[in-house]
């Protein structure tokens, strides 16, 4: 769906994006993670033809960008940083203007009204009425921005920090909406610095650090069991004695044990008369994965070391 080859963007002496090989497959829910200033927004803008690459290639839906922007972008819905709208007009009027501005914009009024209603319904703004956008809350603006991205039934959604400004309820709504769209065949590509958001939503993640793509993998394989077991037992001392050598780490009553079979271990412990409060395979959290591959963020200004 999106392929980049050695994509690089240089602003003067600063390399914002360095030789990125992005690979987003059709049907993915792809989360691009990275600290602030790691180049996420620049990368997203290059995919959309807003910023021109210094070198490298971009292919979206099999066509080169930005050369075929006109055909490609018609099938893309986008949210780029904050949403934007004309403040003195209503949300509906904004959507109508936005819809009319592009190719095939001269659709009959009724079909446009229906599509606007549908999009507003999808993002939970159906009852918003004729209020001008300047009276909207931050979360409502974000929802309106999403509606604009959805209004033409895109095959690919490119969303830059879509959770910004949304309350927990809004984020849950957004997740549900994106998963539903994805089930209907829409590929979702989103960038975020919120790990939890990506962890709960995405099927595939890429991690950007100082402009480099340092990781790109399916979430399932990242979060596969590590071959260790996490055990919580009030009899931790005796467990350690029993499993001498297999215990990798101990933190009070919680133990990390080298073994791939939690059920077997549980049976053995219980057989030996040891109490088990909880037991399960150890998985790395996305946070651990990301922190292990990234350095400090670009907005972290450390002293000379």
């Amino acid at each position: 769906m999106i392929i980049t080859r050695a994509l690089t963007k240089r602003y003067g002496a600063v390399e914002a994006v360095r030789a990125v090989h992005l690979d987003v497959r059709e049907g993915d829910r792809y989360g691009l993670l990275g600290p602030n200033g790691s180049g996420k927004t620049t990368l997203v803008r290059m995919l959309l033809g807003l910023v021109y690459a210094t070198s490298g290639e971009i292919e979206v839906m099999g066509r080169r960008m930005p050369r075929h922007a006109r055909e490609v972008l018609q099938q893309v819905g986008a949210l780029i940083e904050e949403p934007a709208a004309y403040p003195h007009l209503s949300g509906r009027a904004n959507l109508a203007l936005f819809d009319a501005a592009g190719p095939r914009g001269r659709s009959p009024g009724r079909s446009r009204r229906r599509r606007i209603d549908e999009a507003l319904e999808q993002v939970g703004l159906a009852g918003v009425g004729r209020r001008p956008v300047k009276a909207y809350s931050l979360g409502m603006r974000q929802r309106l921005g999403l509606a604009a991205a959805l209004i033409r039934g895109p095959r690919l959604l490119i969303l830059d920090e879509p959770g910004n400004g949304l309350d927990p309820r809004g984020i849950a709504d957004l997740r549900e909406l994106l998963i539903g769209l994805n089930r209907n065949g829409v590929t979702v590509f989103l960038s975020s610095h919120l790990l939890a958001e990506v962890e709960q939503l995405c099927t595939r993640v890429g991690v950007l650090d100082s402009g480099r793509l340092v990781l790109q993998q399916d979430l399932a394989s990242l979060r596969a069991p590590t071959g260790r077991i996490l055990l919580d037992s009030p009899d931790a001392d005796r467990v350690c004695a029993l499993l001498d050598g297999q215990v990798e780490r101990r933190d009070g009553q919680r133990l990390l044990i080298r073994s791939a079979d939690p059920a077997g271990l549980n049976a053995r412990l219980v057989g030996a008369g040891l109490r088990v409060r909880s037991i399960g395979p150890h998985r790395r959290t996305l946070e651990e994965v990301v922190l292990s591959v990234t350095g400090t963020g670009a907005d972290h200004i450390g002293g000379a070391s």
Partner: protein
Amino acid sequence: MIGVELIKLVRRPRTWVSVILTCALPFVVAVFIAVTHLTPPPGQGSAFLSAVLASGALYPAAALALVLPVFLPVATAVVAGDSIAGEAAAGTLRYLLVRPVGRTRLLVAKLISVTSYVLLVVIAVTVTAYATGVLLLGPSRAGAAARAVGPGATQVPGVAGPTAGVAAGGGAITSLSGTPLSLLQLAERTAGAIAFIAVSMLGVAAIALFLSTVTTSALGATLGALAALVASEILVTLNAAAAVQPYLPTRYWLAWIDFFRDPIFWRNIDRGFGIQAVYVAVFLGAAWANFSTKDVTA
């Protein structure tokens, strides 16, 4: 896209506020003149103003002369300077571009929108001034326009004689050259003046539009264009700068007055159209070259 830009123009309160304010100035002036019956002596003050008491039908020309130096260029520069920079600052530019709207197409739509705005203002001023003139200053009397413009106002000595022309027929309007003009002729010549002034404003708009693609500050683009005009005005009056004067954007701004001579004195009008065409072509070209290749990071 063009339709969308026009809708945006029409639905924006600023458009109508600026039109009303621009029309209000000639109205206020007309009220004062109608009450006091005092007009500037011939050759002083704004062009045509000395003649409007004799003929209210000349008031549109006087009104255009009133708004031309400041109101029109400011309004034009505000709208044109805001066109791209305003969208960029509001963040709507990036959404238009990914909709997708081609960059050249967007620029053309903006240009058409600005042109429509200029025509709207100029025509609104003309129409309201005609109504004001006829209602407040009364129908035309003899010998109206001949004293309207003093010598030197258009820097074409010998054409606009300072001596008053004698009106041929009662109720007719006289040209600046003293011969009578029928109402039809007056309408034609006013239309010519409107076209000339609109094209002059397009020159301003082109400069502001170019600056609008350079910065994301609409204010910066507007003031930049106005600064260029002020600089041009200063150089136009500076004898030492005579060598460059024929190429200054405001050099022929007043040539539209020549439409009210008989026969129409085309030399400066043609040059005015020519120089504005060059400014429009150069700055639109620069705007296009800059906008179509730049990174949109706003």
